[in-house]
């Protein structure tokens, strides 16, 4: 008799898998209409979202929970997967990204090829992301990441006819494959040092391994995972890929898949860092006797964080193209999020989690707007956006909100998340305060290029309207309502704008659950 009780908890993943298979099946059968594939994808993601939310215990829908509450936040080494509330929170975050991109992509031009491939790959990548969130084993984690990676390599290139997309996919692939190699090499070294690949077990054995082997292993792992998180200097691919990929895919990459790297950082590095806090003393890695890898990791991660946010911001300063500017901004934001991992306290984890969620909205939303704007005939350069704020006030205001949120201006989610994150660094005291300082100074630097875009949008005089041609082509299709933007995309953008402001005004809404999830994570480990 096969035990099927383990199936229940995986219902969200199963739903996504089913959606993926359905889309591909229909594709094989020749049903390739955007509406159908899109509906399947969006509904699949939506259902998964609903189920995960129920698992997290949101009161009105808690009855639909598929995971027995006894299986969440259970400590100690287990098998390949473990349900933590933080993991579930991250599943929600990933699903949010997928949902927004799926919704917006409903408004893609009808004649475009590969609609069903797009949604199939989207749901498949999302499935990989969900698996990352529940991973408890290093190899399981890396394989889940690869599932997402491979899906996204293909997503970037799914149109197959665009040289820029293909070039982006090629770069993405090569750098990604190299990073994968490094990750697995690092994992193998840790396996050699500890004799296990279970993350909780590794975290618990912080002082047992061969120091050099362990440190080299972690080094390879940081390098490998940093590719996904776009830490400097592992970031170079991201700009080209975000730039070259279809913009909705860029939104998914920047807003979605990048975050699995961060959660992987949580899982892999927070273990040893948290273990230090429990055990206390640390000695040099080359000595004999007990040693803790945590503080060493913290220093390395801190260096990476500061370097990432700084270089990302400085590079963003000179960008002339909107997408590349957003890409660099995305890189710098990764640096902020890394502060949470480095500090490694429950407040910091909560702060980083909120920042990650905020970034999903802000950056995902921003790329969606870019796609929308490109759809109405505005060029790729920032200066092409002249006067957009007056020409398309709603779009302008929404984009302005996202930029303000990225810059961390109050009354937006970006402010709350940065506030909590940097507060947590200060709260941890010691040298972590300098991380807050670095982060805030970088925020200040970042304001410069965000403000410049605002200036271009709202203050510069618009060119003669270039939007007439696409508008005429748009005819009266409902999909291209809202001046050629489309219902789905408009809804996605509006949703983002609303959430950005809502959470900015009343952050307790999210902070409560996130804080308790972070606390659980600290208590039970990855």
């Amino acid at each position: 008799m096969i035990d099927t009780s383990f199936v229940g908890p995986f219902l969200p993943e199963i739903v996504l898998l089913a959606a993926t298979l359905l889309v591909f099946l229909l594709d094989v059968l020749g049903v390739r209409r955007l509406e159908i594939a899109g509906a399947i994808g969006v509904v699949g993601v939506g259902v998964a979202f609903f189920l995960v939310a129920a698992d997290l215990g949101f009161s009105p829908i808690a009855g639909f929970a598929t995971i027995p509450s006894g299986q969440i936040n259970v400590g100690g080494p287990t098998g390949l997967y473990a349900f933590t509330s933080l993991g579930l929170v991250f599943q929600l975050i990933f699903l949010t990204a997928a949902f927004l991109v799926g919704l917006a992509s409903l408004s893609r031009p009808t004649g475009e090829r590969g609609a069903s491939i797009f949604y199939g790959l989207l749901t498949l990548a999302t499935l990989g992301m969900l698996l990352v969130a529940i991973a408890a084993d290093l190899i399981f984690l890396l394989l889940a990441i690869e599932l997402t990676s491979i899906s996204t390599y293909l997503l970037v290139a799914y149109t197959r006819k665009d040289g820029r997309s293909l070039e982006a996919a090629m770069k993405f692939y090569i750098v990604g494959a190299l990073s994968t190699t490094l990750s697995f090499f690092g994992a193998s070294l840790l396996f050699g040092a500890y004799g296990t690949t279970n993350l909780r077990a590794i975290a618990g054995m912080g002082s047992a391994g061969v120091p050099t082997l362990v440190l080299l292993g972690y080094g390879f792992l940081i390098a490998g995972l940093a590719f996904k998180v776009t830490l400097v200097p592992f970031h170079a691919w991201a700009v080209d890929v975000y730039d070259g990929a279809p913009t909705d895919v860029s939104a998914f990459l920047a807003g979605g898949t990048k975050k699995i790297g961060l959660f992987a950082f949580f899982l892999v590095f927070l273990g040893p860092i948290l273990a230090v806090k429990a055990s206390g003393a640390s000695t040099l890695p080359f000595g004999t006797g007990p040693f803790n890898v945590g503080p060493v990791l913290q220093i390395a991660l801190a260096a990476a964080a500061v370097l990432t946010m700084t270089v990302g911001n400085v590079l963003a300063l000179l960008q002339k193209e909107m997408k590349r500017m957003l890409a660099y901004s995305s890189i710098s934001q990764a640096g902020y999020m890394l502060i949470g991992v480095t500090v490694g306290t429950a407040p910091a984890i909560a702060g980083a989690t909120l920042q990650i969620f905020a970034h999903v909205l802000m950056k995902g939303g921003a790329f969606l707007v870019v796609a929308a704007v490109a759809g109405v005939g505005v060029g790729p350069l920032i200066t092409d956006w002249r006067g957009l704020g007056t020409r398309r006030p709603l779009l302008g205001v929404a984009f302005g909100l996202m930029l303000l949120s990225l810059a961390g201006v109050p009354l937006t989610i970006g402010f709350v998340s940065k506030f909590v994150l940097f507060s947590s660094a200060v709260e941890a005291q010691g040298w972590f305060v300098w991380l807050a300082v670095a982060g805030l100074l970088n925020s200040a630097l970042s304001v410069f290029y965000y403000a410049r875009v605002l200036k271009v949008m709202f203050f510069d005089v618009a060119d003669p309207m270039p939007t007439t041609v696409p508008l005429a082509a748009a005819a009266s299709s409902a999909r291209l309502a809202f001046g050629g933007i489309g219902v789905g995309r408009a809804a996605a953008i509006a949703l983002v704008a609303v959430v950005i402001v809502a959470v900015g005004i009343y952050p307790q809404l999210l902070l409560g659950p996130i804080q308790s999830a972070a606390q659980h994570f600290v208590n039970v480990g990855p």
Partner: protein
Amino acid sequence: MIIGVTGTRLRRFEYGGWIAVALSGAAMVVGVLIAFGEAMSPGNYTNVQITWFHVAGAPGTFPNGFTLVMGTLVDPISSLMLVVVTVVGFVVMLYSIGYMHHDKGLPRYYAELSLFLAAMNGLVISNNLIEFFLFWELVGLCSYFLIGFYYEKPSAASAAKEAFLVTRIGDIMFLLGIFLYFSHYATAGPNGGWAANGFVFVHGTTPFLAPSIRGSSTLITVAGIMILGGAAGKSAQFPLHVWLPDAMEGPTTVSALIHAATMVAAGVYLLAVASLFLGFTSFDSLVIVAIGGFTAFFAATMAVVHPDIKRVIAYSTISQLGYMVLAIGAGFAMVGLYHLFTHAFFKALLFLAAGSVIHALGTQDLFKMGGLKKPMKLTAAAFAIGGLALAGIPPFAGFWSKDDVLSSVYSQLGAHPAYWPFFVMAFAAVFLTAYYIFRAWFLAFSGDRIRDPTLPAAHEGPWVMQVPLVILSAFAVGAGLFVFLPGFQGLLLGGAGVAGIPPAYGTADVFLSAVSVLLAAGGIGLAALLWGNGRVFSLADSSVAQPLRRLLLHRYYFKVGYDWIGAKGVYTVSRAADFFDRYVIDGTVHGLERMFGAMSDRLRRMQSGLVSDYAAYIVAGLLGLFAILLVVAPFLIARFGGS
């Protein structure tokens, strides 16, 4: 109460001038009545006050906190000043009706003049130093407005600014003086400290300052110098004298009222008040005597050569104010005020007479005038009376008071030999005074014709201009004799009672008086010799005195020097600072901006587009991580300890 009456600002009335005159007349009546009442009952001081603002106590210097009050104090010296201010004010107002009737800015003129009178009265009856300072600034403001009354004239606008700024320097010193007294008196003295009490003037048998302090305290010495600075600014004493001659750009009536009789006397009044209520240290006294005596002489020399009738009188004002300062410095505050009293009348008379001439001819250049005594008999007589009073010829008013000044200083020479040079200067100035004022008289009035034929035919002004001349002439003749009235004497003595040193009446040295009268007569004689009967004396070009004349005409180059400091010195520094601000401070900001830009550009170029390069960065990053993990981090942990 006086403030209320005269403070009414009148605008846009057809007969606004008359209303202002009526009000100032009423104020005069009230003022004189108050003085009369005070004279009848010496020692009965009326002090009314309200709290202006109050800050609760603080640790340190001010345990009782900090209070500023607004109040009025009527005592002998303030009543004396009230009389001067209201009488001259009324007379000048009346005169203005005639003198100013062609002017387009008439409502503004009367409003400003009324405001001035209100502020001046307020100053006089202030019961504390802060309020005093407040009104002090206000009269300065009115002076600024009135000097710049003809604001279309660049010279008038410039003179107004100059007057304000120069007196401002004095004001700043005055303010610092207040602060110094403040800190010294915060905790000492009656009523829990003078400062805590809001600087209210308290009548006592001695000045507030104990004689022991007067000898020793550096702080009080500096405070005294600062008060002197304030007074010097207002009363145009050396070296802050430059603004007064330029202030003659204002209407002549203004010159008469503000820049001769009242406002400039406020500095002297301040010194008197300070000396009566506070007392000066001996060093302060010496400095005051020095400034007074020197200014008396110094200003007189400049008056000797000047061709402008108003400026000659203006220098004379500076010089006479020097006398007053001199007397106060020597310790005879009431003598100074007595001279102030008489001077107000005869100087106002001189100005109004000069104004009458200017009104008739439209010029101020003495060398264009001449022979005016025929068409303008009254004016000529009035000017002559004023001149005699100024020169100190008995029995005119100036004689009595100036004689008192000289003899009072003389009486202190034994105790303070250092006063000698300044006494001599003051004495020499008597001669110069007589000379320059009669030089002016002869130039304007003697002879048989006007030198510049393009000028219109001279005539007397309307009755509103003549009546004031008559009234003031009467005062110029008789004001000196007031001292023989028991009530007036009571005022002077009552005021002086505070100071401890009585005025010098009756102690006047007959010999001294005789010499000074002779000197004055000599001055008049010389003037008659050189300028009498239409003669014009001109110094030969080759004369050795030419450089001296040029020096005097250029006012010892003080004005040039000050302008240079202001325009070149300060302005250049300021331009340099501006340059620094724009290009160094802001330039640094721009530099940082550019640095980031350059850095950004460098990094940007690393984004070559070649995927192999990206892979290389990854490998470099990997090696960097190894370096941190294996070398840097362990070192840091060993050095600083974990987390």
